[in-house]
């Protein structure tokens, strides 16, 4: 299946919802999706957030639930964006935006940051994606002929984090499915994604299927099947 490429990063927080062609469906906003991701993070987990949409997650953590946000450029305990004027060029997140560090946080070098990731010390990695397959294959680093290849830490997180979840829109801006039987884009890693959170559904990847655990208002098994090119099991 030829899937039109998005000419942008896998996910951009400012994009408008893409799944409005489905009649009565009322897609979740990506802010709501961020809340779904946040509410599934275990207390005390060490969490790495990819660039783009996953950066919405910290703003939706339930009050009082402590997690450790790991930033692969060398920070554990990443805090929110500083107030205007409080930016420090040496205190940025993976997307190069200004951040703060929370009490208890610490800095370390890049090599240690990636030893942490590749050595299995990150509990949850939340990433965006171009495509996710029903067997958990992840494609989120390259669109041949369309974008310069740029991998960053995606392959390290994909193989190193104990649990990899994806947060993305259910389809491309042109309506093509991003949940697929087999990825057509170059793989980041095979068989690593455990759960996907989209604006239409939350689904676990089990036995070569997307097992739907929650669906946005108005989404039925049939409407979801129209925009998903992979086997679906309905367990809402």
């Amino acid at each position, binding site marked *: 299946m030829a899937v039109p490429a998005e000419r942008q990063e896998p996910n951009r927080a400012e994009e408008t919802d893409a799944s409005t062609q489905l009649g009565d469906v009322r897609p979740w906003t990506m802010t709501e999706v961020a809340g779904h991701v946040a509410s599934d993070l275990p207390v005390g987990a060490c969490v790495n957030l990819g660039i783009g949409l996953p950066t919405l997650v910290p703003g939706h953590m339930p009050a009082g639930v402590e997690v450790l946000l790991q*930033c*692969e*450029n*060398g*920070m554990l305990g990443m805090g929110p964006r500083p107030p205007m004027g409080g930016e*420090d*060029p*040496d*205190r*940025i997140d993976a997307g*190069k935006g200004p951040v703060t*560090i929370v009490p208890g946080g610490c*800095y*370390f*070098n*890049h*090599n240690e*940051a*990636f*030893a942490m*990731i*590749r050595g299995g010390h990150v509990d949850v990695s939340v990433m965006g994606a171009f495509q996710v397959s029903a067997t958990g294959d992840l494609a989120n680093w*390259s669109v041949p002929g369309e*974008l*310069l*290849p*740029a*991998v*960053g*830490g*995606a*392959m*390290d997180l994909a*193989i*190193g984090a104990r649990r990899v979840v994806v947060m993305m829109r259910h389809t491309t801006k042109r309506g093509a499915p991003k949940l697929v039987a087999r990825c057509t884009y*170059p*793989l*980041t*890693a*095979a068989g690593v994604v455990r759960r996907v959170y989209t604006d239409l559904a939350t689904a676990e990847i089990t036995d070569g299927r997307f097992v739907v655990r929650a669906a946005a208002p108005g989404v039925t098994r049939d409407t979801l099947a129209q925009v998903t090119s992979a086997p679906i099991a309905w367990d809402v």
Partner: protein
Amino acid sequence: MLPANGSSSHEASVTDTRPLARIDKEVATPAQAVAGIGPGATVLIGGFGDAGVPFHLLQALADLGVGDLTIVANNAGTGDDGVAALIRAGLVRRVICSYPRSRGSVWFERRHQEGSLELEVVPQGTLTERIRAAGAGIPAFFTPTAADTALGEGKERRVFGGRACVLEEALSGDVALIRARRADRWGNLTYHAVGRNYGPTMASAARLTVVEVSEPVVEIGDIDPEVVVTPGVYVDRVVFVGTEN
């Protein structure tokens, strides 16, 4: 590589009358700091985005004008400064980096489209580990990162514990250019926040390690040994450039 007036001897004999026995790695200007870098050099460049980028050393290297460089860095530079200044000036033949696709990375994109710039994309963790390996005397290592992907093609593949891995080779530099916050005259370094990033690793992996620091160089003993991040043994030259980056 010791400076001409340096000595690391702990057992200077009584007949040793060398007048300048102090180790002092400080040089006065960025131009002096990059002197001697030759054409075709492989240059390790610290930084992630703009954090920790040794902008002053990179400008001095661009001014030096030696070409045919291979540069190893996380990003391929944005705007007109830093890594972009070298690429803009046509001094770079090959870029080994993790994430060249950045907003404002116009000089990299232009030279790459012209076909005058080779690109090797390396997963970020593999990039830093390859550099670490070089500094630690490890010629190669296996990692599951990039196994069975396009970035693992052509590399030796082996399975360990049921997991596919690829062989990655150490990556050393002729020169490392990094930025730190504070140095003493022996080259012991501390950093500022995530500006640390590749600095400590790259410092260990080059034959000549050059550091720009944002605070005036201090006397030995002024940095608490408990907080030294990069031991001075890895550092050859230090230049104070001020807080402006």
